[in-house]
């Protein structure tokens, strides 16, 4: 090792009299850090690979769709916003399942949560901020390809008046979807602290269940028993999203066609599940703090 040539002068301990940020600013800092970490920014190079690979895979087909619309001069998108998300639902779910442990398992597993909780942010606000970071990351993930579709479609000459309301309704449903996925995967990762377990459990809870729900809905539609398909849809966030996207014309496709009452039931279910996940997350972190 090279010999040290510089001299470090010990100027003694200096205190800090400057400004200190309030709780809101702290939560914002934590939120932004969490959002960056969900995409591997500010972490090791290796941790950026998966989120950006998934994001790329999610956006490229949208670019192709826009290309087709431009060249063939279609007067509507062959795959509209919500339907497109239905197509990439595997990628979105994988992203949520893989990145939720980054935000929810790490602090608990390495016990660095103790250091956070010994600081001004209350445990409940910590849990909610983490959830907000993950939900925003998922929203960015779904919003990006739909923006490509919307922007590209308008540039290709699609009618603004036709597309905008559909697009906005899809964004509203994406908000609901992101909140739900973040709640469910976050809750799973805060309990299953080993990353592998958390990812597998999230995939089971979201992808496998969504597959089963879809099969049940297809069979119900074929047999002509709508009620079974409608009830089955309540068990998967993706079925809730796709069902509502079809019912409320957000450019979605769904096997089942919801009546108004069922649509509201779907929305209520989404809100209740999301609230339950948040309550459980808050409870989990408050309990950890007192241990």
């Amino acid at each position, binding site marked *: 090792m090279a010999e040290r040539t510089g001299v*470090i002068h010990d100027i*003694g*301990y*200096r*205190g*800090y009299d*400057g*400004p*200190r*940020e*309030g*709780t809101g*600013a*702290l939560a914002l*800092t*934590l939120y932004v*850090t969490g959002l960056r970490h969900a995409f591997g920014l*500010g*972490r*090791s190079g290796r941790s950026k690979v998966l989120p950006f690979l998934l994001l790329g895979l999610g956006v490229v087909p949208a670019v192709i769709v826009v290309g087709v619309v431009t060249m063939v001069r279609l007067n509507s998108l062959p795959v509209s916003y919500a339907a497109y998300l239905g197509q990439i639902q595997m990628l979105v779910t994988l992203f949520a399942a893989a990145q939720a442990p980054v935000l929810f398992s*790490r*602090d608990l597993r*390495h*016990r*660095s*949560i*103790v*250091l*956070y*909780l*010994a*600081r*001004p*942010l*209350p445990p409940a606000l910590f849990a909610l901020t983490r959830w907000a970071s993950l939900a925003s990351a998922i929203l960015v993930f779904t919003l990006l390809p739909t923006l490509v579709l919307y922007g590209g479609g308008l540039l290709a000459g699609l009618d603004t008046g036709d597309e905008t309301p559909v697009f906005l309704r899809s964004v509203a449903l994406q908000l609901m979807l992101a909140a739900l996925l973040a709640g469910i995967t976050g809750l799973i990762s805060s309990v299953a602290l080993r990353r592998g377990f958390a990812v597998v459990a999230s995939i089971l809870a979201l992808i496998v269940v969504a597959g089963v729900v879809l099969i049940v809905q297809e069979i119900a539609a074929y047999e002509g028993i709508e009620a079974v398909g409608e009830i089955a849809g309540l068990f998967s966030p993706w079925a809730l999203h796709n069902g509502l996207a079809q019912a409320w014309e957000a450019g979605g496709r769904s096997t089942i066609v919801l009546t108004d009452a069922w649509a509201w039931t779907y929305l209520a279910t989404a809100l209740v599940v999301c609230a339950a996940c948040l309550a459980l997350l808050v409870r989990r972190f408050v309990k950890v*703090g*007192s241990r």
Partner: protein
Amino acid sequence: MIDTSGITMRFGTVEALTALDISVGDGVTGLVGANGAGKSTLIKILLGLLEPTSGTAHVLGHDIATESAEIRRLVGYMPEHDCLPPDVSASDFIVHMARMSGLPATAARERAADTLRHVGLDEERYRQMGGYSTGMKQRAKLAQALVHDPSLVFLDEPTNGLDPAARIDMLQLVQRIGRDFGIAVLVTSHLLGELEKVSDHVIVLDGGRLLQSSATSDFTQHTGGLLVEVLGGDAERDAFGEALARTGLTCRPRGQLVAVDPPPRDLSLHALVRDTAADLGLGLVRIQPDQAHLEDVFLTQGATHG
């Protein structure tokens, strides 16, 4: 700095703390007790992470029940157990922790660099913490507790797992924090001897009860007894001790020395020691006053736990 009155903490049927009344001032205060005496529980209550079953406490003038966020803004906490994420560098982590304590970005970076230098992490600070030795991890943990310039720090077993040399370094650092940095320190340890060297004041807990709280000098004052060493080996030491015992004194061997308890009546202990040695024909090597140690608190006050 800290005042508690009647703090009681029950976990189910177990009473971890019983009606604790303590007060902590400036400088370094040692919180001593066996494992399970309630030291960590008390710190968690003072941080507002645990709600006591009954009783009230004030930290830096703030009530723990209603102003715990304000308390956590002004104090630092170094937990006992490992709590560092392995895939982050100490430098990045300490900056992040400074921000989580409310420091703006620029100040957080400056203070993190300063603090890491004070705790003695140099080039290692840019390496991921997973590869740190126990000593380096303890320093990083200490740095995160100091980075926001708190008015008071809670250090829970800072010497845990350290080798003797690192232990001495850490204790000197604790002493500097209290004396040079001007930050009040509440430091816990289950090793009593350690704390008597660095703390100004000692609080002894036993089984969740307050055993004693006083200045360290009160614990380590001269007892009136003597330590005597004579030439020769164990046989000479024992012969000398037995001869002294025959004159009515209480003696016990302590290493190569004979410890003589304070004489019951007014008697010239030094003369008696001299005469006894002369009678036996033994050479006296040294006679020194015996000091009390923190351990004696447990022996004399009937501790309930080992």
